[in-house]
């Protein structure tokens, strides 16, 4: 499976207050939340983002609060995958649990580059500058979770 899209480049320590400001934590709806993604940090994001665009971050992406509203907003905006050097752990858990793929890779990119993520091969390629990076496979258990369709589906089978 592959995802190819236009890059939105962020730096290190993109915190969950940047991804979705606290004042919007009054709904769980993905589309509603998407309307306010990065509102303070990058006001042009909500106007210009297109489904299929890929977010590329630095280290500690998604740090700060546990708000699941953060990956929900990104899913609502049509982001198919987030690539970052490292992820904060609650953001990582939330994303995997609800079906937003995350890839841990350190790849050079700037806004507007075209990025391809090959999940099977475990490689991300910046087709604009030609750089590639490998990423480690997901732990077995998490692969099963994702294959099951997320934690809710997994839990439904568990409690039967």
């Amino acid at each position, binding site marked *: 499976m592959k995802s190819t899209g236009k890059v939105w480049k962020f730096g290190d*320590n993109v*915190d969950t*207050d*940047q991804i979705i*400001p*606290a*004042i919007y*934590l*009054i*709904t*769980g709806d993905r589309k509603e939340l998407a309307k306010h993604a990065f509102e*303070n*940090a990058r006001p042009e994001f909500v106007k210009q983002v297109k489904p299929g665009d890929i977010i590329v971050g630095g*280290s*500690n992406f998604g*740090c*700060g*609060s*546990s*708000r*699941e*509203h953060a990956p*929900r907003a990104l899913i609502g905006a049509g982001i198919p995958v987030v690539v970052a050097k*490292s992820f*904060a*752990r*609650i953001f990582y*858990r*939330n994303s995997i*649990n*609800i079906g937003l793929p995350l890839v841990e890779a350190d790849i050079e990119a700037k806004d507007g580059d075209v990025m391809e993520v090959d999940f099977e091969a475990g490689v991300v390629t910046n087709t604009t500058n030609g750089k590639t990076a490998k990423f480690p496979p997901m*732990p*077995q*258990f*998490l692969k099963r*979770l994702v294959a099951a369709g*997320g*934690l*809710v589906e*997994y*839990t*439904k089978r*568990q*409690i039967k």
Partner: protein
Amino acid sequence: MPTISEKILAGHAGLKKVEVGQIVEAEVDYIMVNDVTGLPAFEVYDANFPDSVMKRDKVVLIPDHYVPNKDIKSAEQAKAMRVFAKNHKIKNYYEVGRGGVCHQIMIESGVVAPGRLIIGADSHTCSYGALGAFSTGVGSTEAACAMASGKLWFKVPETQKFIVEGKLGKYVMGKDIILHAIGDVGVEGSLYKTMEWYGSAIENLSLSDRISISNMAIEAGGKAGIIPADKKVDEYLKGRVVGEYKPVYSDKDAEYSQVFRYDAKDIKPTVSEPFLPENARPAANVDIKIDQAYLGSCTNGRIEDMRAAAQIIKGKKVHPDVRMIVVPASTDIQQQMIKEGLMDVFINAGAFVSGPTCGACLGGYMGILANGEVCVSTTNRNFIGRMGDKGSMTYLANPYVVAASAITGKITDPNEL
């Protein structure tokens, strides 16, 4: 040679032992959600799981972020929690006026005890590590799934050892220790790891100061922040704890990924400058005027914090260009403040004293900041726009520093008052 984290996860997963990096499914003792993380969790639960499987005795519902209801949407959100509690017969629901900030209530309620495995849909759930529990923040969907199955998946973390020896200086608190440590390791320095705390300086801390340390483990990226339980924890839990408990300790030859040593006398009253908690500096080295002084939150909203600030501000006045906002973290603390005359101390000084709420800590209400405003606060985060307008700035500090700064109108080390 296992650590506290490995033992607690192994025990709750029904395994003899676990390896660092292993993913286990463990029975959790309690699952907590607050008003903002509750709504998405309730929607997931009711859409997917029947009431018949609800682990209602393990669920704790505590509205705190936007209550007393901040606006209509917050009112709807709070109502959703009330309705969920009723529909699923969840007894552990703390209504406004009889509760407070979620982590403080969890600790006061007696469900937190050494050796327990507790999850909360709030990042500062790591706070309960101060009582020797393994506790960690999770998301709303997984909180709902845990309510249905009673279990959750965890990756067994590495553990870092933090040792603080010696005697803390005047006006130095647990808050300064954790700000100092985060300043040292960085906001990613404990990513996915448990921080374990040792040393004479830690042992001599009150439980309240230990809670500040565990509370901010997440600000270094930590999964948990655990302080081995001792007599102080037993004393606190006497007559309060729900059920029995058995403390868990790391083996003497436990393996730590890193060891950090700090000398207590090197730790001064500290502030963390915007916009990351890792920007720790001695308060004495920071020269900036403030508009607001905020005393409260799960980090420093306890009676000990109120006493510390009151000690500084008693008989003095809040600076004419400053507003000081005091927010006890629970109804019990609010009542204790009244009994000890602390309400009068703050009000006479010209501060505004509120009932318990998370309020302005996360830019909710009850004291948010306008563009260009500066706040010194006992809270736990200073990201861009955290406490209000994206052009505002928050400096994190301990209650003594907040009170001293409220008097002078600028960030002040209380030793220099």
